[in-house]
């Protein structure tokens, strides 16, 4: 049985209580809504993309500690990155949570590694990936709501 401390690591709790970039980006040129119908978590993600680079990113919404911390860390990790690099981070993150047999790409994930404990709680993986799927939807120009179901 994985311990609660693996799930609710200090850095995660800190992001939950003080989420970074928790704001609407007024001059955003990409955005998407994400929704987890199972628990009601909702997120609005705003991106400002210039010359293939994510120059600004912010999010709003309601959700559990895991979805909120994950969204907060997402904004930190993709800000200033190219769209291609954001996709790489998404892939590494997704694989860390859903493909236990694949070795974790620590270089790409950096702080996001603190969410690795979520993989031991299958019912919570959707909470952690909600913001990330919303990011892909925004980058792909899918402005209508996406869901985790």
């Amino acid at each position, binding site marked *: *049985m994985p*311990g*609660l401390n693996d*799930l*609710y690591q200090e850095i995660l*709790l800190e992001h939950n209580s003080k989420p970074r970039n928790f704001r609407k980006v007024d001059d955003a040129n990409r955005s998407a809504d994400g929704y987890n119908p*199972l*628990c*009601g*978590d*909702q997120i609005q993600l705003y991106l400002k993309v210039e010359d293939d680079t994510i120059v600004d990113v912010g999010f709003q919404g*309601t*959700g*559990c*500690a*895991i979805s*909120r911390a994950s969204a907060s860390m997402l904004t930190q990790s993709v800000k200033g990155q190219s769209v291609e690099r954001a996709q790489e981070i998404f892939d590494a993150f997704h694989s860390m949570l859903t493909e236990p047999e694949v070795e974790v790409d620590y270089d790409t994930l950096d702080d996001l590694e603190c969410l690795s404990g979520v993989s031991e*709680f299958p*019912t*919570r993986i959707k*909470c952690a990936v909600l913001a990330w799927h919303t990011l892909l939807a925004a980058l792909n120009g899918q402005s209508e709501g996406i869901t985790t179901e």
Partner: protein
Amino acid sequence: MTSNAHSFDVARIREDFPVLHQMVNGKPLVYLDNAATTQKPQAVIDALVRYYSADNSNVHRGVHTLSQRATEDYDSGRSKARQFLNAASDEEIIFVKGTTDGINLVAHSYARQHLGEGDEIIISTMEHHSNIIPWQVLCQEKGAHLRVIPISDSGELLMDEYESLLSSRTKLVAITHVSNVLGTVNPIKQIVEMAHSQGVPVLVDGAQATPHMPVDVQKLGCDFYVFSGHKIYGPTGIGVLYGKAELLEAMPPYQLGSDMIKSVTFERTVYNDLPYKFEAGTPNIAGVIGMGAAIDYLTEIGMDRIDNYEHGLLEYGTECLSGIDGVKIVGNAPGKASVLSFVMDCAHPHDIGTILDTEGVAIRTGHHCAQPLMNRYGVPATARASLSFYNTRDEVDLLVKAIDRVIEVFS
């Protein structure tokens, strides 16, 4: 015997439920998700095993011995359900898949026949999605309107508002007996009397009432009453729609096929009598037998004694949870069934649920299929502990201890 007439021996009752005796995440299981589904007593499990190992056969068809046995058990399941609701006759008991199926049957075979443009159906703010969507979609189809009885902050229906919503345009009132989120017990008898004074029939969603209290449909006076077997300690996939015979007689069938017919030619079909008219196809025979065993089990204990014991437990739980800083109970109506919804300042319900699970405590978190009600209270979700007569004060203490753990993690 499960218990004697004077004391409520919960330790003895717990012995009847094999699933309760297990460790979850290294802790003894504390099952407090009874509003989602209840655990099954050995008597129900045995009835299912006995049917499949000794009597399995189709009903109402064969002349052979097994078919006769299966038919007798199946039919007696109907009589048990009739007694459970105190309906006037067996023909008023229609077997359905569950509450949702029963409501859809009434939407299709009753409301669709009577609803016209500009007509209205009245529901309430505290309805489960399954008592909203069938009416909403039907209203959209017919150009009719859904009207919603508001509730107070404590979770009671505003009866004055209900009275003012009732009019000559109202064609049906569909209301829950007990709220699955708030635990509120609605004044069904009064709701029915007010509707009937305007000639409006009433459907009651009894999914959350039947597990907790004696129900007498003749006393309530309602026209339709629906409940699910799995919430009264029986199997999933079976439930009951009670309907007054004269209404059911006038309604067209819900589904068409075998068993619901008297005679068939390629030109014409004569439908069967009640209740079979509404039971097309081979029914859920094992489900009916299992639900019958559950009703026997509950009847032996006594629904009034269950009601009484659970009230004591609810009072204790309410007192304990109210005493924790940062915990707020959602739903404080004076008359409640044993449901405790709560939110916490420090943690989202989903996180509460995960932490409680690591302590072996099973609760439900989320919107409980009642999103409009969540909106009413301005919360995205709640945590819900729903208590059964097999739960104990010790288990409530373990819930409190697990909630303390949530505070510890998030402080």
